[in-house]
C-alpha cells in the first residue's frame, strides 16, 4: 500500500454500513471474496467502529492510523486431530478486531476445522457461533469484548474464537492482527 490516500480510497469502496451492522449483530462479519483485501485497508474501515465500541463500553482507547499500525500475519496448518483452543484478547489497548482466512475448500480439502466463536453474556448462557467462512472469503472477528444494545442500555459481551478439530485433510489458515506500536496514538 503506497500511501494513506490510497488506503482511504480502497476502504471507501467497501460497504462499511453493512459490515458494522453484521459485527454489531453477530460479533463477526464475512466478506465474500474478501481474501484479496489488504489488511490495512480493512483496518482503516474498522477504526471508526473500534472507536465507537470503546466509547460505548466507556473504555479509553486510541488506535493509530492505518499507516502506522503493525499488521502481524500468522499461518497455521492443522492436520487430522488438530484444533485451536478458544482464545480471546481482552488486553486494555488491543484493537478489537482481527482477520481470518482459510486457504482451502471445506468439505473438499478438509473436513471439520470449523471456525467457532462463543459469546459470553452477563447472567445468561453463552451463545455458540459457527462463522460460515469459505475459501477466498475473509472473516472479521471481534477478538474480545464488544458492546450490545439491550432493552435497558448497553451491556458488554465477551467473545472467544476457536478452530474445531480437523477430521480429514489439511486445513491451512491465515490470520492477521493489528498491533498498536509502543506508545500508542496521541489521543
Amino acid at each position, binding site marked *: 500500500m503506497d500511501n494513506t490516500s490510497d488506503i482511504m480510497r480502497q476502504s471507501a469502496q467497501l460497504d462499511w454500513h453493512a459490515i458494522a451492522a453484521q459485527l454489531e449483530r453477530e460479533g463477526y462479519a464475512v466478506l465474500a471474496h474478501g481474501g484479496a483485501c489488504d489488511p490495512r485497508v480493512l483496518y482503516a474501515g474498522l477504526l471508526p467502529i473500534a472507536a465507537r465500541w470503546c466509547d460505548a463500553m466507556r473504555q479509553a482507547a486510541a488506535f493509530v492510523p492505518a499507516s502506522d499500525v503493525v499488521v502481524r500475519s500468522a499461518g497455521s496448518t492443522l492436520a487430522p486431530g488438530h*484444533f485451536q*483452543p*478458544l482464545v480471546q484478547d481482552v488486553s486494555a489497548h488491543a484493537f478489537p478486531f482481527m482477520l481470518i482466512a482459510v486457504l482451502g475448500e471445506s468439505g473438499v480439502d478438509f*473436513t*471439520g476445522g*470449523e471456525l*467457532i466463536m*462463543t459469546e459470553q453474556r452477563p447472567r*445468561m*448462557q*453463552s*451463545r*455458540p*457461533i*459457527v462463522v*460460515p467462512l469459505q475459501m477466498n472469503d475473509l472473516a472479521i472477528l471481534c477478538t474480545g469484548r464488544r458492546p450490545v444494545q439491550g432493552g435497558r442500555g448497553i451491556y458488554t459481551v465477551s467473545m*472467544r474464537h*476457536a478452530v*474445531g*478439530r480437523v*477430521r480429514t485433510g489439511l486445513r491451512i489458515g491465515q490470520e492477521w492482527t493489528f498491533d498498536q506500536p509502543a506508545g500508542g496514538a496521541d489521543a
Partner: protein
Amino acid sequence: MPDPMLAQRDWAGVAAALDAHGHAVLPALLAPAQCAELAALYPHAHHFRSRIVMARHGFGRGEYQYFAYPLPAVLQALREEVYRQLAPIANRWNAQMCIATQYPATLAEFLARCHEAGQRRPTPLMLHYGEGDYNCLHQDLYGEHVFPLQMTILLSRPQSDFTGGEFIMTEHGAGASRAEAVPLAQGDAVIFAVNQRPVPGSRGMRRVALRHGVSRLLSGSRHAVGLIFHDAT
C-alpha cells in the same frame, strides 16, 4: 427387550470416542421415515407435557417440548437399550472421577431411583428451530440424580431442510478451553457428556466440564430429539 440391531453397534468404538472427545456419533440410528414420523408429532400437543419458548428464559431462540409418558415406542426402546449400553461407561467414568455413584444395569431400575427422589417428569424432548434460531451452551441437569451421558438425534436433513444450525460442544478444564462442531446427518445420534468427564492429566485423572448448544440456523427448519436418561423434578 434388547434390540439386537442396536446391541450389534460398535459400542467399543462409542466408548473410545467418548473417552477421547467427550462425544460419539452413532450414524443412521433412525431411518429417514422414522425421523419424518417423529418430527410430524411436534404440532400435536397431546404427545407433550410442556412447551418451552427459549427466548423467554434467555436460553436462545426457538422452542422445544418435553414428551409426556408414555413416550413414542421408538424413543422408549432407544432410551432403554442405549441406557443399557452406556451404564458401564458411566460407571467407569464415575470411578475415574472419584464419584461414588454407580448406575444400575437397566433404565427401569435407574428411573425408579429418580422417581423415589421426586424426579418423576419425563425429560425426553423435541426441539424445533427456524431461521435465526439457536440454542445457548448449556447442561441438562434436572435434580439430584443425573445420568452422566445423553443423546441427541437429528431428524432433519442438513443442507436440504436447513443450513447453519450446527451442534456445538465446548469443554472447559484446567487447561485450554476448546470448541467443536459435531457433524450430523439425518438420523445420526450424538452421545455426549451431560456435565463432566474424566481426562488423563499429569497427576492422574482430572475433570473437565462440557456444554452443548446449536449455532444459529441460517435458513430452513430443524427438528431434533433429545434423550436424557434421568427424569426431572
